[in-house]
C-alpha cells in the first residue's frame, strides 16, 4: 500500500489568507494511502524542506504531495529535497494552490474546497507515479549565436573567451547590426563606431569564432546539448575567401542607383557593394536585384576589375550543417514602418525622417558627410520638431502597446547634438512623458533642457503638413499651457517605435521557443531567468527579448553568454526522464507514433515474441530513444492500441486526476 505524505504550505499569507490550510491538510489526511498530512508556514524554506525530508524517512513515504505554489516554481526544490531524503524525486507531485487557487479566489470556503480537490488530484496521481531515473546525453561543445549585432557579438566574444567555439549567423553581409548605424551614444556621447568596430574586428579575428555572414538559420533539430542546425549561406556571388575588400569593384560598378540600406535609403550604393568601410567581413556582395550581369547577363565589369578573381556569378545558396550544444538568439530589432501614420506625412515629405535616419544624416559616414542637411533640398534646417512615441505606448492596432524605452534618451541626444553643432537651430520635442531611468540619464536629459535650451513641450502632434514653400507645418497641442500650437518647421523627426526583427517569428517556431504577442521572445522567468528561454539550451540576448539600450543589451549578452558557457562546461546533461515508452506486447507497429514525433525519437524493430503456446512470432514494434524523446506525448494519442505511454504523465495518472477532480 502506498504511504503518501501531504504537505500544505501557507506561503506566509499568500495561501493561508484565502485557503484554510489546516482544513486542507486535515481533509487530505483522510485520502486513501495518505499517512501524514501537515501544514507549514513556508514549505520551500529550509526548515520546511526538512519537514518533508524527515517525514519521508520517518514514515517511509512512497509518495509526496506538496500543496503550494506552481510546480513551475518549486517542483525542482521539492524533488531535490525528496532525493536528499532517499525518495525518488519523481514520486513528488505538486498541487498548485497558490497561483491557481488562493491568488485568484476570494471566498475562503470555495477556495479551500478547490484546494482540497487539487490536492486530492495530486494524491490520486502520486498513487500511480513510478520512480524514474534520468538518463544523460552528451553536450556538443559549440555554441550558435543567431544575429551579429552588438548583442550577438558580445555573446560570441564572451563564449569564445571561455574557450568554446562559437558561430555567429548574420543575415546581412556584415555584422554590426543597428549599433553600426548609430552616430553617437547616450549619455556619454561617444562615437558608436569607435567602440563597436574594435569588437567586430576582435570577433572576426578570434580563433574560436566563425562568422557566417549573409546567412540564415534554415532548420533546427535536436535538443539541449545536441542541436543540429542547418544554415543557409546565401549566394553573395563573391568568393569570401578570395575577396580582399579592396573596393575597386564597387567603384567600377556601373549600376550606381541602388538605395543604400545602411544609410536608410538616403543615398545610393552600387549593385556590388560593401555596406560600410568597417564592415566585417569586409567582402563585397552582389545585389542580384540590381546587378545587370545577374539580371540579363550583360556587364561583368566587377569580374573584370577584380584582381583576385573573387566574382562568381554562378554562386548558389549553400547549406551547411553543424551541431551545437547551446543556441543564443540575438535577432535584435527594427524601427516600425510608419506607413500607417499619414498624419505625420512621413511618406509624403522627405524632410520628415525617423530618428535612425537622422542618425545617418548626422553621421560623418552618412549621406552628407556629417553635415545636417534637409534631405529634400540639402539646406540647413533651422527649426526641427521631434515627435515622441510614434507607435509606442499605443492602444490602437497601428502601433505597439509597449514603451520602446530608448527613444526618450536618443531624442535628448539628438537635440543636444544639434544644438551643440548648430546653435541657430531651434529644437522642439513633443513628448507625453520623458522617461529617464538609468545611470546619468536624467542628468543628460536635464542638460538638454537647461544647458542646450531644447524646447520640451508636453503634448501631442496632431498633424504634420508639408507646405508649398518647403516648410512643414506642425500642428500640436501644448497640454501644460493648454493651447494649440503651429510650428513652422524645416524638419520633423519621428521617434518610431521599435519591434523585433521579422525573422524572429519563424526562428522561434524552429527553436520551439515561445514569443509574446509582440513577437518578443519570452524568457523562462521574467525575474529569475531573464536570459533563458523556456526551451532548454536556448538563450536570449539583446532586444529580441524586449526593447533595450546598448549597455543593457551588452549586459544581457554577457549574461546569456554566461548561461551558455555554464551549459557548455558540462560534459553531459541530465535528460528528462518523463519520456514516452512503448509496450511491445501491445504495439501494432503501425507507424502512427513515428509520424507525429517531432524529434524522430521513434524507430521500429522486428522483435521476436515467445507466444504463450510456445511458438514464436516476429512482429514490428516501436522503440523510443529516451535520449531524443522530449516527452510531448503526441505519440500517446496517435497510438490506437494504447501501447505508447508517457512517463510522469501516463494515461492512468491523468485519468486518476480527472476522476479525483470529478469526484
Amino acid at each position: 500500500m502506498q504511504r503518501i505524505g501531504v504537505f500544505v504550505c501557507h506561503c506566509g499569507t499568500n495561501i493561508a489568507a484565502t485557503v484554510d490550510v489546516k482544513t486542507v491538510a486535515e481533509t487530505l489526511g483522510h485520502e486513501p494511502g495518505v499517512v501524514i498530512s501537515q501544514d507549514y508556514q513556508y514549505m520551500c524554506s529550509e526548515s520546511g524542506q526538512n519537514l518533508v525530508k524527515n517525514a519521508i524517512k520517518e514514515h517511509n513515504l512512497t509518495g509526496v504531495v506538496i500543496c503550494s505554489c506552481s510546480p513551475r516554481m518549486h517542483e525542482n526544490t521539492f524533488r531535490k529535497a525528496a532525493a536528499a531524503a532517499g525518495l525518488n524525486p519523481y514520486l513528488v507531485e505538486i498541487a498548485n494552490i497558490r497561483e491557481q487557487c488562493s491568488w485568484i479566489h476570494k471566498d475562503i470556503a470555495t477556495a479551500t474546497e478547490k484546494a482540497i480537490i487539487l490536492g486530492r488530484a495530486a494524491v490520486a496521481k502520486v498513487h500511480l507515479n513510478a520512480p524514474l531515473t534520468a538518463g544523460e546525453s552528451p553536450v556538443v561543445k559549440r555554441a550558435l549565436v543567431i544575429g551579429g549585432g552588438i548583442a550577438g557579438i558580445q555573446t560570441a566574444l564572451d563564449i569564445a573567451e571561455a574557450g568554446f567555439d562559437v558561430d555567429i549567423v548574420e543575415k546581412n553581409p556584415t555584422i554590426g547590426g543597428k549599433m553600426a548605424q548609430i552616430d553617437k551614444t547616450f549619455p556619454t556621447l561617444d562615437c558608436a563606431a569607435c567602440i563597436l568596430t574594435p569588437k567586430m574586428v576582435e570577433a572576426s579575428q578570434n580563433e574560436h569564432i566563425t562568422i557566417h555572414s549573409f546567412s540564415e538559420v534554415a532548420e533546427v533539430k535536436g535538443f539541449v546539448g545536441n542541436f543540429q542546425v542547418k544554415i543557409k549561406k546565401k549566394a553573395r556571388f563573391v568568393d569570401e575567401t578570395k575577396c580582399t575588400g579592396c573596393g575597386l569593384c564597387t567603384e567600377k560598378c556601373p549600376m550606381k542607383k541602388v538605395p543604400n540600406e545602411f544609410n536608410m535609403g538616403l543615398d545610393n550604393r552600387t549593385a556590388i557593394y560593401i555596406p560600410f568601410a568597417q564592415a566585417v567581413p569586409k567582402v563585397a556582395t552582389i545585389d542580384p536585384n540590381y546587378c545587370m550581369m545577374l539580371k540579363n547577363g550583360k556587364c561583368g565589369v566587377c569580374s573584370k576589375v577584380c584582381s583576385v578573381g573573387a566574382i562568381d556569378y554562378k554562386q548558389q545558396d549553400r547549406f551547411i550543417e553543424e551541431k551545437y550544444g547551446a543556441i543564443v538568439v540575438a535577432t535584435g530589432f527594427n524601427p516600425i514602418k510608419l506607413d500607417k501614420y499619414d498624419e505625420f506625412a512621413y511618406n509624403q515629405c522627405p524632410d520628415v525622417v525617423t530618428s535612425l535616419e537622422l542618425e545617418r544624416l548626422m553621421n560623418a559616414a552618412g549621406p552628407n558627410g556629417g553635415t545636417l542637411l534637409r534631405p529634400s533640398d540639402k539646406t540647413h534646417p533651422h527649426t526641427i520638431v521631434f515627435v515622441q512615441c510614434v507607435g509606442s505606448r499605443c492602444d490602437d492596432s497601428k502601433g505597439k502597446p509597449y514603451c520602446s524605452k530608448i527613444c526618450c534618451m536618443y531624442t535628448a541626444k539628438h537635440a543636444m547634438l544639434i544644438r551643440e553643432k548648430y546653435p541657430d537651430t531651434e529644437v522642439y520635442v513633443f513628448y507625453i512623458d520623458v522617461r529617464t531611468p538609468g545611470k546619468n540619464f536624467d542628468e543628460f536629459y536635464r542638460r538638454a533642457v537647461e544647458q542646450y535650451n531644447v524646447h520640451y513641450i508636453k503634448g501631442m502632434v496632431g498633424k504634420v503638413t508639408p507646405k508649398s514653400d518647403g516648410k512643414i507645418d506642425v500642428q500640436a497641442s501644448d497640454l501644460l499651457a493648454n493651447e494649440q500650437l503651429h510650428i513652422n518647421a524645416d524638419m520633423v523627426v519621428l521617434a518610431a517605435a521599435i519591434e523585433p526583427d521579422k525573422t524572429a517569428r519563424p526562428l522561434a517556431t524552429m527553436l520551439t521557443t515561445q514569443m509574446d504577442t509582440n513577437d518578443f521572445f519570452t524568457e523562462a522567468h521574467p525575474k529569475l531567468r531573464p536570459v533563458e528561454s523556456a526551451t532548454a539550451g536556448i538563450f536570449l540576448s539583446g532586444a529580441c527579448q524586449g526593447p533595450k539600450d546598448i549597455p543593457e543589451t551588452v549586459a544581457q549578452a554577457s549574461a546569456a553568454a554566461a548561461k551558455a558557457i555554464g551549459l557548455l562546461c558540462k560534459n553531459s546533461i541530465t535528460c528528462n526522464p518523463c519520456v514516452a515508452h512503448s509496450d511491445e506486447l501491445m504495439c501494432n507497429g503501425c507507424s502512427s507514433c513515428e509520424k507525429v514525433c517531432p524529434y524522430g525519437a521513434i524507430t521500429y524493430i522486428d522483435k521476436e515474441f515467445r507466444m504463450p503456446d510456445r511458438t514464436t512470432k516476429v512482429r514490428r514494434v516501436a522503440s523510443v530513444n529516451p535520449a531524443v524523446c522530449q516527452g510531448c506525448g503526441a505519440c500517446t494519442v496517435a497510438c490506437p492500441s494504447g501501447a505508447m505511454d508517457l512517463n510522469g504523465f501516463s494515461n492512468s495518472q491523468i485519468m486518476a486526476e480527472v476522476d479525483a477532480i470529478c469526484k
Partner: protein
Amino acid sequence: MQKAMIERAKQLLADGTVKRVIGWKRGEFAYDITPAVFETAEELDRDFVFDDFTAANVSKYLVKESRKEGRVLAFLKPCDTYSLNQLTKEHRVDRGNIYVIGVPGGPKLDIEKIKGKGITGILGVKNENYTLKIDTLYGEETMPFYEAVLDKCASCKSKKHVTYDELMGDDGDILESNRFDMVEKLENMTSQERYDFWRSELSKCIRCNACRNVCPACTCENCVFDNPKSGVSNKAAADSFEENMFHIIRAFHVAGRCTDCGECSRVCPQHIPLHLLNRKFIKDINALYGEYQAGADTESRAPLNNYTADDCEASIVHERGVE
C-alpha cells in the same frame, strides 16, 4: 466469374505461386457465406463461391494469413483492396506474401433487406435481370434487385482496384457517391434531434464487438477496450455513456484510417448505422483538411498524423450548422 476464379486459383496452387487461397465458402442456404481458406483444388471445386452474397471483406484475414508460411492468394473486390492497402501502409500485412487478384465489386445483396420485406423461409435467391426471384417455403416471392442491395454497396465509393497483382474482369473508376447524404441530413438536424437519433440507435448496442472485430482497421494486438490497464476497458454497455464511449473512441481510433468499407454496419446484428460515425470523420477530414481516401495508396500521411500551419481552429465546430 466464379468458375474462372476457381480455375485460376487452381492454376496458381498447382504452379506453386500460392499455397493457400482466401475466398468465400458456400453455406447451408443461398446466402450464408463464410470467408474461408482453401488449400486444395477439391476444396475449391466443392465449396468456393463468388456470387451476389459474397460481401464479406476478407482483407483483415490477411493480417494472420500473410504471416504464415507460403504465399496466399486473395480475391479482393475493389473496396477490399483499399483495406489491404491501408493494412500494408500500417505494416500489418506482409504484402509480398499475398497474391491479390482483383475481382469485380458488387453490388452485393443484403439478406436482411430481403427478410425485412417480410420474406421468410428463404430457400433460394436468383437474380433474373435485376429482379430477385426468391424461392421460399411459402411460395415464390420477387423483389427488385436494387432494393436488396447492401447499404455499403448502394453508396459505393469506388469500383477501382487500388492494389492487385492480377485483375479478373475490368477495373472500374472512382465513383461520385452519395455516401455523405445521411451524414449531411443528420448535420442539418438540431442537436436534440441528433442526440435522440443516436440514443435510439446506440442504445440497441449489445457490445458484441462484431463491428470492431470485423473492421480491417481494428487490428490492434490488444484493444484498449479489452485491456484492463487502459482504464477504459469495458465489456458490456452498462450505461448509455459506455455505449457512446465505445463507439466514439472506436471511430476516433480509425479516423483517417477507415476506408469506409462498411463492414461495421453490415455485421451489426442490431442494424446500428455505425458507418455514419466513420463517414462523419471522413466528411470532416475531406472538408477541413482536403480530400483524403484511406487506403488509396500506401505512402500518404494520415490526416490525423499530419497538419498544416493554417488548419482551421476547433471552434469551427461551434461556428457552423444549425442552432
